[in-house]
């Protein structure tokens, strides 16, 4: 049996030695922090105008995280490329010749990918939060307020799980172009649109991104289908299902 620490070292070398890793992760950070900062600044400057006729309490946390729906696309691309580039180049056969234990291999890949995504996501989440609060001035909140710390960590877990979910889907599809073509429109268009369409939204509320984003809520929304922890569990279930599916495909198909 191949040694698991050896697989982790090897996969870490792989991931750090291609530029797409830096670009996609940097983009995740810049977009999430930047758009959140912009929205926070605009909100602070036009607070009374924005809040006219709004009854719900102002959520300073979600204002700071306004950019996450775009930032998540970059980390999804990161997850797709980390798995998918092996299929486009034929590298997967070199990898499997070196590590024929396919399940162990994919586990190693997911651990390295998930760990890196988690570190970047935690840093991104906290900097996004603090930047947003600094720009919200008197309307800002603090980590000490109820549910705020959970929401910030929730944002980090949300990004990490979407990244791993995308990696699992890519392992199932075995083609990075196809995976991008499926995942990006799904997360950017289909899921957000379906989650507001009457009736269909009942189903769309169980999609991984909608479920995961429940972790970011500080205040309960009217008519929300379930709470933040249920959302976490649903998103985690999707992520694990995608990775297990990817492992099954990898184990059963000819490379």
């Amino acid at each position, binding site marked *: 049996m191949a040694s698991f620490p*050896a697989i982790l070292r*090897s996969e870490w070398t792989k991931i750090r030695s*291609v530029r797409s890793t830096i670009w996609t992760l940097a983009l995740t950070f810049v977009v999430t922090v930047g758009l959140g900062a912009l929205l926070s600044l605009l909100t602070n400057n036009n607070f009374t105008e924005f809040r006219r006729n709004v009854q719900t309490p102002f959520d300073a946390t979600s204002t700071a995280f306004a950019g996450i729906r775009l930032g998540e696309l970059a980390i999804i691309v990161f997850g797709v490329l980390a798995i998918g580039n092996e299929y486009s180049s*034929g*590298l997967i*056969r070199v990898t499997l010749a*070196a590590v*024929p234990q396919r399940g162990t291999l994919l586990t190693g890949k997911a651990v390295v990918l998930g760990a890196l995504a988690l570190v970047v996501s935690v840093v991104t989440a906290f900097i996004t939060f603090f930047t947003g609060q600094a720009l919200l001035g008197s309307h800002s909140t603090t980590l000490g307020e109820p549910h705020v710390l959970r929401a910030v960590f929730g944002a980090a877990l949300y990004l990490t799980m979407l990244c791993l979910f995308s990696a699992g889907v890519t392992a199932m599809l075995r083609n990075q172009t196809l995976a991008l073509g499926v995942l990006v429109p799904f997360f950017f268009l289909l899921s957000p649109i379906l989650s507001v369409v009457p009736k269909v939204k009942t189903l769309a509320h169980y999609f991984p991104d909608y479920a995961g984003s429940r972790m970011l809520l500080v205040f309960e929304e009217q008519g929300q289908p379930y709470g933040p922890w249920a959302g976490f569990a649903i998103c985690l279930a999707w992520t694990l299902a995608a990775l297990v599916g990817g492992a099954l495909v990898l184990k059963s198909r000819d490379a």
Partner: protein
Amino acid sequence: MIELHDLTKRHGRTLAVDRLSFRVPQGVVTGFLGPNGAGKSTTMRMILDLDRPTGGRVTIDGRRYGQLSEPLKYIGALLEAKAVHPGRTARDHLLWLAQSNRIPERRVDEALALVGLTPVARKRARGFSLGMGQRLGIASALLGDPEIVMFDEPVNGLDPEGILWIRNLMKRLAAEGRTVFVSSHLMSEMAVTADHLVVIGRGRLLADLPMPEFIKRNSRSAVRMRTPQPERLLDVLAVAGLRHEPGPDGSYEVVGGDLAALGDLAAAHGVVLHELSPQQASLEEAFMQMTADSVEYHAGDGPGRDAAGAPGTWAAGRQQHSNAQPAAAARQEEN
């Protein structure tokens, strides 16, 4: 040692590899020869457990590939020339491979030096020529200092200098006592590198024998004689006890005959000759003849089907030389 037992691979309705059994002998270069589409690459992928056999099995030193711990230390393979991430440097490509099998990092630099890629070690593979990509693939095969190396069509698309380099490398690896298993669709390439030969066609074994034996059986030399008096010539040949075969354009070929002796013989009996020439069938022709037969067996689905396989059958197949050509022509007409 690599051993195949009734190895079979079916892709949908087509049999890519059909009950293939042979051993790759240790310490020599074994050429794995067959036309394009004969099943060479599929066989090699099954040896590495990349493709799962439909039937039969293949073992390396008695174990399945997946049971080898750190397989790069047993067997190194080059399957595709540019199976590298275009954005990764040559050194990083070898580094992750080394780490996955706990091969010391100094081997990375040794392998790069061995294939002459040290100057471009930190360049991204995107800019590599086919030859450089091939060298990098060979460096990854040699990384674990393996007993067995396996190359799939290593000279494809290379310039003459690259071809020569790979030939010499394979000979050197075998001289070091390693087992070299190399596929090709070119007999001429194998003739200059291989010590042993395994020939397949349509996924079936056609020949498995040492190279000198193959040459002995297949390098057919003959003397071609053309005459306006064929009956007299045939009488003379019959009296002298010389076997002959019909050649092209009404000529006759005496297999293994001596040019001067046949000339003297004809003169002594007053037979007019319009041609007296030595004929040498190349190994390439022998190989093409052999694989053409394999195509024939399948197209005809005739009783000859099971004749392919044992080395001895090739000698028998060669006797059908003259029959094979009309059959091939007939097949073309059908198309």
